[in-house]
């Protein structure tokens, strides 16, 4: 039981990454490919955030920060903030990539009137 | 106080369960929406009330702020959830879903 819990997150991220990769490679529809790309991105984010989690740790916001600066902040008591920072920006950038990818899909649909990969290739 | 919180939470979970059963078992779209819209709103109100009581164990400014914010969530759910239900029902009606009838022959428009 302990071993399952200790590596469950990593298994799930591998599974999600496989799902996303499969969708990007095998699906014929461009929007489906974009969804696969989003799933791939979230898989990576799951991995990063999982490395930052600590047992019996609270969120990385120091409690009662308004008053005087406390001397000792226990490191083991707060989750690792660094992956959170990296992944926060990654999510916002993923919106940007999503917008650009969907815009490219719209452009392709405007020109070839299809979102299917093989139909577009026939018209090329 | 804890007992009140537990009772309220259990009631809310029962309502959530009823919502889910309704969502799964009702025969057509409109009746399912009926279950989802009403049950969800009520049960979220009850469980938020329970959480307010639980977090309000001692009276000071920070706890008051938390309680206010949780109640604000309840207010927004009360505004947003029925409107969302209305929008979905309207969209379903516009797109021509027929209401369910026990005998499809004697159904009137």
């Amino acid at each position, binding site marked *: 039981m302990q071993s399952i819990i200790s590596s469950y997150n990593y298994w799930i991220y591998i599974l999600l990454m496989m799902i996303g990769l499969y969708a990007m490679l095998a699906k014929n529809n461009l929007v489906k490919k974009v969804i696969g790309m989003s799933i791939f991105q979230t898989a990576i984010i799951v991995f990063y955030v999982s490395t930052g989690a600590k047992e019996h740790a*609270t969120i990385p916001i120091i409690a009662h920060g308004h008053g005087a600066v406390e001397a000792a902040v226990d490191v083991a008591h707060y989750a690792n903030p660094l992956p959170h920072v990296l992944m926060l920006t990654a999510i916002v950038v993923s919106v940007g990539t999503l917008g650009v990818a969907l815009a490219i899909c719209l452009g392709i649909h405007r020109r070839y009137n299809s979102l299917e990969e093989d139909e577009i290739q026939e018209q090329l | 106080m804890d007992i009140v919180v537990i009772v309220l939470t259990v009631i809310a979970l029962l309502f959530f369960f009823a919502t889910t059963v309704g969502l799964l078992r009702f025969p057509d779209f409109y009746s399912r929406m009926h279950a989802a819209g009403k049950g969800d709103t009520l049960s979220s109100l009850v469980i938020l009330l329970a959480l307010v009581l639980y977090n309000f164990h001692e009276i000071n400014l920070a706890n008051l702020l938390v309680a206010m914010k949780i109640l*604000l969530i309840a207010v927004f759910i009360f505004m947003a959830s029925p409107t969302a239900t209305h929008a979905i029902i309207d969209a379903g009606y516009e797109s021509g879903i027929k209401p369910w009838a026990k005998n499809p022959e004697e159904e009137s428009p």
Partner: protein
Amino acid sequence: MDSFFIGTGVALCLLMLLTLHRAIHGPTAIDRIMGVNVIGTKTTILLVIIGTIYHRVDMFIDIALAYALLNFIVTIAASRYFQQHKNLNPKGYGYRFPAEDD
């Protein structure tokens, strides 16, 4: 009391699983929207419960508030889609592609 709230959270997750059945197998797309709407409400509740378990509700409440405000947008957007397209038929999507090779 913490274990009680954890139990509540797990129960809500189970109910979410049942709702997800409607969201995935819903006969029409509009049933799926309904399921996702219900899941969104449950998410709001569960966020507050997780905050209670962490004993830092004041930090988690903003996320729940954001969900309570924004969950609405998805539903409205989807329903606007149907109001403009008026086409729920699971077979033969769209007017220009009447019953192709599906």
